[in-house]
């Protein structure tokens, strides 16, 4: 069966795919058509068929989905790699998945993908790991939703000889996975912090910080990196608590969401109308903040810096809404991850430790002494 599926586009396997479930459904319909005496007895059979038909259709539909996914799939010796993201919806992870798909197609690797239902859905990620191990994955790439809670499941997978690589976010401890392919979120914060310092010069600043959510490592690292780069606080890249500083007049959580970013900025401006520098956890939050600032007529007085480097975000830099952003490369993380699993599957070499996938400062208003790339570069390399 699996050999037949290996011939994409040919009539045979496609025929197989559709006839099997439909055949089963037809059998049920035949049951429904058997002569019956009581009208009241007939309707449930119709309902049963009603229940079965769309299910079958949906399964066929999903099978078609899989046929396009696994179009390069084939015999049992083909390497299988799993990618588990925090959610299915965040553009960052969508891009990461795209990168993995491209790499998988290019290298002839079968890619399985899964995601939690919400950011923080540990149980969903555990289930995905188990299912991927069951489906014979040689390696799993995961962006852990809960850096601690996922560890027992990862340990079980590794005990079965599966290579596990954390993407984007480290596990706690980092040694729980074979390797971490990530961007340095602290460094991303440092870059925009240094930039903001150079831009504002010696002027007195009032900073608003639009953070992610409590207890999430990415948010803490970017936050601390910014304060460290700006020189507002002495904080190391390993601190697990967000630092504070005298020049920060307002801190709000945004969940990285545009609407919440806007509401947070409105609150901050209410608290202190003199805010002139805004750090944002990501570009959606930055755009929300810009809307609030523009509504208050302060768009020329306030500088916004951000992190991520999504295409929408870089466009906003181009439009002058955001002064600078630290661009990260989710595509690259996933591609390198797929490559690593493939080489593990072929000759058993394992990557180890932390592999930095890089971060670049993108701005059209460069500050002397600080390395940056312009918006064209940003657009060429952006995601989302």
């Amino acid at each position, binding site marked *: *069966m*699996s050999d037949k599926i290996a011939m994409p586009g040919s009539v045979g396997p496609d025929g197989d*795919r559709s006839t*099997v*479930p439909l055949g*089963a459904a037809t059998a*049920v319909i035949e049951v429904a058509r058997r002569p019956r005496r009581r009208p*009241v*007895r007939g*309707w*449930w059979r119709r*309902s*049963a068929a*009603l*229940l*079965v038909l*769309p*299910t*079958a259709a*949906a*399964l066929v*539909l*999903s*099978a078609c*989905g*899989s046929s396009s*996914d*696994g179009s390069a*799939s084939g015999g049992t010796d083909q390497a*299988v790699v799993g990618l588990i993201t925090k959610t*299915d919806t965040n553009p960052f992870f969508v891009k990461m998945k795209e990168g993995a798909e491209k790499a998988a197609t290019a290298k002839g690797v079968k890619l*399985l*993908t*899964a*995601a939690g*239902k*919400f950011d*923080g*859905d*540990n*149980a969903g990620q*555990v*289930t*995905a790991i*188990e*299912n*991927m191990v*069951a*489906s*014979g994955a040689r390696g799993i790439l995961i962006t852990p*939703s*809960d*850096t*601690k*809670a996922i*560890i*027992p*499941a990862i340990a079980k997978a590794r005990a079965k000889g599966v290579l596990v690589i954390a993407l984007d976010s480290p596990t706690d401890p980092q040694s729980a996975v074979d390797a971490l392919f990530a961007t340095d979120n602290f460094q991303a914060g440092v870059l925009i912090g240094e930039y903001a310092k150079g831009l504002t010069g010696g002027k007195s600043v009032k900073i608003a910080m639009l953070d992610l959510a*409590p*207890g999430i490592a990415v948010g803490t690292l970017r936050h601390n990196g910014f304060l460290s780069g700006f020189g507002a606080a002495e904080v190391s890249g390993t601190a697990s608590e967000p630092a504070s500083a005298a020049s920060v007049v307002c801190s709000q959580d945004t969940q990285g969401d545009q609407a919440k970013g806007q509401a947070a900025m409105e609150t901050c401006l209410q608290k202190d109308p003199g805010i002139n520098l805004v750090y944002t956890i990501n570009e959606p939050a930055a755009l929300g903040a810009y809307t609030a600032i523009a509504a208050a007529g302060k768009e020329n007085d306030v500088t916004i810096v951000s992190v991520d480097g999504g295409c929408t975000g870089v466009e906003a830099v181009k439009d002058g809404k955001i002064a600078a952003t630290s661009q990260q490369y989710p595509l690259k993380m996933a591609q390198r991850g797929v490559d690593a699993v493939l080489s593990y599957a072929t000759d058993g070499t394992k990557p180890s430790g932390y592999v930095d996938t890089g971060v670049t400062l993108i701005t059209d208003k460069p500050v002397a002494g600080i390395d940056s790339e312009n918006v064209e570069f940003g657009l060429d390399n952006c995601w989302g």
Partner: protein
Amino acid sequence: MASTKAAGAEIKLRNSVGSFAKNAPDLATLGPVIALVLAGLFFSIKSDRFLTGGNFSLILQQVMVVGTLAIGQTLIILTAGIDLSNGAIMALGNILITKLAVDAGLNPFLAIGLGLLACTAFGLLNGGLVTTIRLPPFIVTLGTLNIAFALTHIYSNEETISDLPAALTYLGKTFNVGQTEITYGSLLMIALFGIAWCILTQTSAGRHIYAVGDNPEGARLTGIRTRRVVLTVYAVAGFIYGIASLLLVSRTGVGDPNAGQTDNLDSITAVVLGGTSLFGGRGSVAGTLLGALIVGVIRNGLQLIGTKSIYQVLITGILVILAVAIDQLARRRKA
């Protein structure tokens, strides 16, 4: 697969009795059985890794938490109620058990006992508000959902609790039947389904739960103490959520404050897919087990054949609407 067979036997039994008896129970049982068998058949053909003992054990293990929650949910829905708070109560239980055992250094069994107690107390609170102040269950449990969620996050300080004593994760351990590893937790879930089935179908308490959901005023007039029945159901459901929290701890090996956020809807999904009516008074826990397995099988199977996980959500959505539509049709026919 054993449960499928059992349900099949039930159909035959029902078909042998009078012609009137053939309608609602058949449909309620047959729909989910067909869906499950069909999905199983489909995945067996598409993947040679699906039809193995190990994979079935895995699916059981993956549905054990939501499945257990869904037992409590079934009891409540049978009384024409609904419980939105079960996932949050379970999360609170899982944080209490782990934090008391790890941070407070309590004897693990005492910690488990206190966790079960707290969950039962939350169930009692739900039931008390529903029966004494006569607030709609939807609103009551929406409130307690938020209360339990907040308490979980306040008490846990947003921190995941790890390095648990072995006693807390015992139910996550496995034993071998032939080549197949089976977790104790999934056996516990099946045992709980069995007990719930016996109580609902073989005892007067069970009959009273159905009667209260079906015709509350009529049940009262026949001398059933309806408020006490409803209060007991919510309290028992709370206790079951406590067991679910223990299963969750043993499954994930940590105390996770973010756990269970969609489990309330997932448990309702299992109940509805199993053919239990949201209007109360009709349905079965056997159906709920099937409903939970349908979700588990589709999720696992789609992953095995390499389909995006979002298709599971799509199919579940279609099935839920169908299940409810069939229930509505049935009620209209019989009105």
